[in-house]
C-alpha cells in the first residue's frame, strides 16, 4: 500500500515573494490526486518542496513519520527512495541510454545481479511501451518516449509515492490520455499514492480520486474530485472552462476594476473564450481490463462515505450517483437518494454514520504479488 503524505501549513517564498502560504492537505494512501492551478502558481515548486529539493519556510510534510522539511540528510535520502518522480521532460541522464537510465536506481540502491536488473528493467520498459528502444539515447527519442522512460525509471524501485509534474506538457491529447491510463494501471498494480500536477482539464476531470487547486498563493480547495468539479467557486469554474471571464488574469489575479471592465466587454458580446460549459462529473477512467482492481479506489469509497455529510450538497449528490447498486446496499443507502433533487442538500448522515464497521473494506488476501513488499535495499553506509 502506498504511503500517506500529510502536509501541514507548508509555506514557501523566494525572498520577499510568497509562492504559497499555509498549504494543508493529506494525500490518502494509494489514491490518485491531481493538483490544478494556473501557470506560475508554484505547482512545480510545491512538488519540489515535497521531496526536499526546495526548503519550505514553514510547515511540515510527513511521510511514514518522517518530516521531510526538518529531517537529517541521511533520513531525507532514505525517504526519497520511497518516491518516484516524473519530471516534465523525463529528466533522463543524457549520457546514458534508456536501459542504463532505468537501471540506474537499481544499480545504486540494490545489490541485485545484472541478470535480475535486466529482467526488471525490461519489464518496466515493456510496461511503458518502450520495449526495443533500450539502446537509444535520450536525445534520439521523442518527448513522449522520454516521458515514458522517465516513468519507467521512477517505477523500478517500486515507489510508494509517485509525483508527476505536468504529464501532458508536449504531448497531444491522445498521448496524454494514454499516459493517464498508464498511471491508473500502475496505481492498480502497485497501489502507490499519486500526485499529478497539471493544468490539463480533461485529465483533471477523468483521472483522479482527489482534486486540489492552487490560486492566489494558497490552496483554494482539496478534496474528493466531486467537490471541485461541482464547485461554484468563480476561480474553479473559470479554470475548468478556460475562459477569460473570471478572477484569473493573464499575469496574475485581476483587480476588481479590470474585472469589471472585462465583464462589460464580454457582456457587449466579446468572446470570452472556452467552448462549452464544463459541468458535471464525468465518469472516472478505470484501469485496463486484466489489471487488478484499484485498492485505492476501494479505500477512497469508504473514506468518502464517512465524510460525506461534511461535503457540499452537489458533491454529495455526485458521489451518491456514482455508486453502483452493490455499493448502495453495502453502505445502506436507499434507492430514493439517487433521484436528483429528492433529498438534495439533506444528507443521509444517519445512514453514513452506521457504516458496517470492522475496518470497512478489507484488503483482499493474497491477490497479486505483494505490492507492499519492498525491494531489499542496499544501505549506503551510515553517514
Amino acid at each position, binding site marked *: 500500500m502506498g504511503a500517506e503524505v500529510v502536509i501541514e501549513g507548508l509555506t514557501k517564498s*523566494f*525572498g*520577499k*515573494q510568497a509562492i504559497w502560504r499555509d498549504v494543508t492537505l493529506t494525500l490518502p494512501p494509494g489514491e490518485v490526486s491531481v493538483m490544478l492551478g494556473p501557470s506560475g502558481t508554484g505547482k512545480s515548486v510545491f512538488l*519540489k518542496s515535497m*521531496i526536499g*529539493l526546495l526548503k519550505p519556510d514553514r510547515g511540515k510534510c510527513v511521510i511514514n513519520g518522517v518530516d521531510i522539511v526538518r529531517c537529517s540528510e541521511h533520513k531525507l*535520502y*532514505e525517504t*526519497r*527512495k520511497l*518516491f518516484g*518522480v516524473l*519530471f*516534465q*521532460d523525463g*529528466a*533522463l*541522464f*543524457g549520457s546514458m541510454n534508456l536501459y542504463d537510465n532505468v537501471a*540506474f*536506481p537499481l544499480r*545504486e*540502491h540494490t545489490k541485485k545481479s545484472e541478470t535480475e536488473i535486466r529482467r526488471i528493467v525490461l519489464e518496466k520498459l515493456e510496461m511503458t511501451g518502450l520495449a526495443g528502444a533500450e539502446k537509444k539515447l535520450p536525445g534520439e527519442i521523442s518527448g513522449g518516449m522520454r516521458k515514458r522512460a*522517465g516513468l519507467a*525509471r521512477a517505477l523500478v*524501485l517500486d515507489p510508494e509515492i509517485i509525483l508527476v509534474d505536468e504529464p501532458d506538457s508536449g504531448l497531444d491529447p491522445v498521448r496524454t490520455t494514454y499516459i493517464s491510463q498508464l498511471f491508473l494501471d500502475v496505481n492498480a498494480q502497485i497501489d502507490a499514492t499519486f500526485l499529478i500536477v497539471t493544468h490539463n482539464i480533461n485529465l483533471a476531470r477523468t483521472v483522479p480520486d482527489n482534486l486540489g487547486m492552487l490560486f492566489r498563493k494558497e490552496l483554494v480547495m482539496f478534496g474528493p474530485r466531486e467537490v471541485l468539479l461541482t464547485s461554484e467557486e468563480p476561480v474553479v469554474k473559470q479554470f475548468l472552462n478556460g475562459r477569460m471571464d473570471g478572477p484569473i488574469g493573464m499575469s496574475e489575479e485581476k483587480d476588481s476594476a479590470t474585472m469589471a471592465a472585462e465583464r462589460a466587454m464580454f457582456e457587449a458580446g466579446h468572446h470570452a473564450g472556452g467552448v462549452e460549459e464544463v459541468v458535471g462529473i464525468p465518469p472516472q477512467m478505470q484501469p485496463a481490463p486484466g489489471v487488478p482492481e484499484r485498492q485505492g479506489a476501494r479505500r477512497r469509497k469508504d473514506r468518502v462515505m464517512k465524510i460525506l455529510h461534511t461535503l457540499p450538497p452537489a458533491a454529495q449528490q455526485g458521489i451518491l450517483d456514482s455508486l453502483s447498486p452493490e455499493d448502495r446496499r453495502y453502505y445502506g443507502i436507499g434507492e430514493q437518494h439517487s433521484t436528483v433533487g429528492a433529498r438534495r442538500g439533506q444528507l443521509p448522515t444517519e445512514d453514513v454514520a452506521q457504516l458496517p464497521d470492522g475496518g470497512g473494506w478489507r484488503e483482499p488476501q493474497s491477490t497479486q504479488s505483494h505490492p507492499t513488499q519492498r525491494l531489499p535495499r542496499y544501505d*549506503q*553506509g551510515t*553517514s
Partner: protein
Amino acid sequence: MSSGASTARVPGIGMLRETGKLFALGLDVGRGIFQRPFQLREFIQQSWFIASVTILPTALVAIPFGAVISLQFGSLARQLGAQSYTGAGSVLATVQQASPLVTALLVAGAGGSAICADIGARTIREEIDAMEVLGVSAVQRLIVPRVLACMLVALLLNGMVSVIGVLGGYFFNVVLQDGTPGAYLASFSALAQLPDLWVGELKALIFGFIAAVVAAYRGLNPPPGPKGVGDAVNQSVVITFLLLFVVNFVITLIYLQIVPAKLD
C-alpha cells in the same frame, strides 16, 4: 539560489551568502570523499578527461614560463655578479611558485570550465534533481570524483611542469645567456630544498580542489536559463583565478615563516 540577490539589503550580504554556500559545498565534498561507495569508474573517466584536455596546453605554457623566469633571473644575477646562483634561483621560482600556478590556471581554465559546463547543463535539464530524488547524492556521485580527479591531475601536472620548466630554464640559460651548464646544475641545490617541492605539490593539490569545487558550485547553481550556464562557466573561471592567487599568497607566506630558507 534565486533568493540570493533578492533578499540582499545590506550591500555585500549576497556575496557573503554565496561564499558561505561555496564553503559548505567544499565541506560536503570533503565529507563525501570518505563516504562509501566510492565512484571509481567516474573518477577514472574524469581523471582521464581532465588530463587529456590539460596536458598539452600545460606543457606548452610551461616551456616559455620556465624560460622567462630563467632569462629574467639570469640577467639580474649577472648584474649582481651572482651568476653561479642562476640555476638555484630559477629552480626555486619554478618549483615553488610558477609550476603550481600554471598547473592550477590550466586545470581551472580547461578542466574546471568543462566540469562547470557539464554540471550546469545537467542542472538545467533537471538531471541533478532527478538524481537527488532517486536518493543518490549528486555531490557524492558526481562532484566528489571530479574534485578528486582535478586534484590528482593537478598533482601530476605540477610534477610535469616543474620538470619542463626547469629544463626550459636550463636550455635558455645555457644557450642564450651563455651560462655554464655545470654551474647551473651545481647550484640547483644551493637555494632550493626538498620542502620546496613538497609545498609546490601541496599547492597544486589545494588549487586543484579549489578549481573543481568552484566549478561544481557554479554548475550546481547557475543563473536561470541556458545563457545562465554560459555565464556560470565564465564566472567559475574568474572566481577560481581570484581565489588561486589569494590562496597562493597565504600559503607562500605561511611556508616562508615555517620553513627556514636554505642559505648555508
